[in-house]
């Protein structure tokens, strides 16, 4: 244990010295900034059914903050807000955050449905917020002017996944099941036209996210249905769906979207899962950071690193504001975020936003689950 702590501290120190990659325009990593004090918020599902993902996001936000504070000599503090992936809870947290005059930006929330709920509140308060996992395409049509994301959107993921299914898995018929949340229905809307254009017979089903009994639905999977697409966010549900398939001797393969990327929970052999985030342990430039995160917090998946990137963007924006001799406020931090131009990042790709807050040239990654339950990246 002691050794792990020392290793983590050493790795963190090394990363802090190198400034962890590039920074936003105008902010010089390592430049001393006197009295650069600011508060930012974190919104994520720290408890609830997807607490594992939310906790990972919080860990990476903390990690980015501690490294950036050290590198930039800033005093940015983080206020945690637990949304439980519930729009109502996210609204309550956002009301607390927006009424906190010291808060200049927010990392999160995690889910698209939460962004839908809090977007108007954030806009009214002029609060910039950057999500590391909300991917619904409808979020960046311009209706939430203070919203940004460091991950790609479902209008990229949906067609990308659908095309892979059509061109590689060649199903004659498939079932697609939404979980009645904005994230899920948005993906279904993005994928279905691709399936229909390929003349695949589509059985579109819908179950509430709280459902845990899929036996009746699985009974509807016919022998000609070779793929079941689950654009869900609760990995335990997909695991149960897979078990129900096995119990009823159904051969269909599950294709999950990024919400199901959970190596510890969703382990149905032969399934596919896409992810907005890469496996950073496979990115050489992230080796020290990945080791530090693992030593400090244990194993992690793909939900944490994008939140690290989101927090880093905010930290650098605040630092650039201070360097310009201004006191960080929501408006000047927002302007600095808009000017973000990182040629590389923890995600292995540049971070630059378009006029609606979308990541320019973002992409998704596809994994296949092996018989041992391990996620293996599909090249391409």
């Amino acid at each position, binding site marked *: 244990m002691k050794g792990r702590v020392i290793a983590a501290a050493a790795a963190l120190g090394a990363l802090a010295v190198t400034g962890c990659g590039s920074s936003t325009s105008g902010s010089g990593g390592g430049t001393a900034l006197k009295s650069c004090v600011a508060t930012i918020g974190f919104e994520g599902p720290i408890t*609830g*059914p997807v607490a594992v993902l939310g906790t990972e996001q919080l860990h990476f936000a903390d990690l980015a903050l501690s490294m950036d504070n050290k590198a930039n000599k800033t005093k940015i503090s983080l206020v945690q807000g637990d949304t439980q992936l519930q729009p109502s809870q996210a609204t309550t947290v956002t009301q607390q955050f927006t009424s906190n005059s010291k808060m200049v930006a927010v990392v999160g929330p995690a889910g698209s449905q939460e962004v839908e709920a809090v977007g108007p509140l954030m806009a009214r308060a002029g609060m910039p917020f950057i999500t590391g996992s909300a991917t619904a395409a409808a979020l960046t049509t311009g209706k939430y002017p203070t919203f940004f994301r460091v991950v790609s959107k479902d209008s990229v993921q949906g067609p990308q996944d659908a095309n892979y299914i059509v061109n590689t898995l060649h199903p004659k018929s498939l079932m697609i099941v939404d979980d009645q949340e904005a994230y899920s229905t948005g993906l279904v809307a993005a994928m279905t036209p691709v399936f229909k254009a390929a003349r695949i017979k589509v059985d579109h089903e*819908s179950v509430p996210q709280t459902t845990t009994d899929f036996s009746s639905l699985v*009974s509807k999977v016919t022998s000609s249905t070779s793929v079941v697409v689950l654009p869900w966010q609760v990995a335990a549900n997909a*695991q149960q769906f897979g*078990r129900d398939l096995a119990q*009823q001797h159904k051969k269909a393969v599950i294709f999950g979207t990024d919400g199901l990327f959970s190596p510890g929970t969703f382990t149905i052999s032969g399934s596919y899962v896409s992810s907005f985030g890469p496996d950073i342990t496979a990115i050489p430039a992230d080796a020290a950071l990945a080791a530090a995160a693992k030593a400090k917090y244990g194993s992690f998946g793909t939900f944490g690193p994008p939140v690290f990137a989101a927090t880093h963007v905010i930290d650098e924006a605040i630092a650039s504001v201070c360097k310009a001799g201004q006191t960080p406020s929501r408006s000047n931090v927002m302007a600095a975020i808009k000017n973000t131009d990182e040629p590389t990042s923890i995600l292995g790709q540049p971070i630059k936003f378009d006029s609606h807050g979308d990541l320019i040239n973002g992409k998704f990654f596809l994994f296949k689950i092996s018989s041992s339950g391990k996620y293996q990246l599909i090249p391409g």
Partner: protein
Amino acid sequence: MAFFFQELVNGVTTGALYSLVALGFSMVYGVLKLLNFAHGDLYMVGAFTGYFVIQWFGGPAALGIPVPLLLIIMFVLAAGLVGGLGVAIERFAYRPLRDAPRIAPLITAIGISFFLENSVLLLFGGQTRIYNTPEFISLSSGISIGPVTIDTVQILVLLSGAALMIGLRLLVSRTRLGKQMRAVASDREAAEMLGINVNMTIAATFFIGSALAGVAGVMAGLMFNQVANTIGFIVGLKAFTAAVVGGIGSIPGAMLGGLLIGIAESMITGYVSSTFTNLIVFGILIAVMLARPSGLLGRVQLAKV
């Protein structure tokens, strides 16, 4: 036809769970005229009890005891612990309000529901816990009749659910305690005047109803593999609906209501679409209530004026 029978098996199994939880709702309403909204959370505590028993004996992949013995311990512990919790809730939260206006215990019940949900959150965290049943009860075990499959867990749920319901029916109709429960449900004051220990009878009712919810929680954990502090709400709502449709206060009514909801959900998912399941199920239930306001097996109550 095979598809119909597969959906019937699925529906009856889920319905059996609803029935077990609905029985507790109905029994408590019978003796206290109280809608115990904390009942779904007792089911959740039962599911957690089962989970921790599995962990105690080495976890699903490395059990240190035979599976039948594990199941017995899970059911007995969940029944005992949750039954005891039900008695404690009655004693400290509901009994002081027994003569208060009916809205007071109702609000208290909602408060107890939140208390239990958040206590479990504080104690064990918010993450979903996985039973991993297939690690110790193979998915391929069970019965296959043509293309219709009934796995071991479903058989277990169906048999133990049926045994518990029959046992409860016999207890209420054939035993001294059952007679006392019926007397208290009929007229509490008169029962007291006849020498029946009302407090003890109500506590016994809470114990039995809560124990059934605890056992149902373990069954749900075995079937659906996951347990979290929030799972009680939806099941509680469906069980409450089952109890009302069957005729709240009626034990056979609660059994019938649970089975009807389970089968209706399954058939609508299978033959129409999962998209419309809740819409059609609750539409049917509204129609039933309009046609028989006291529920399918409920009796019209004559009010004293």
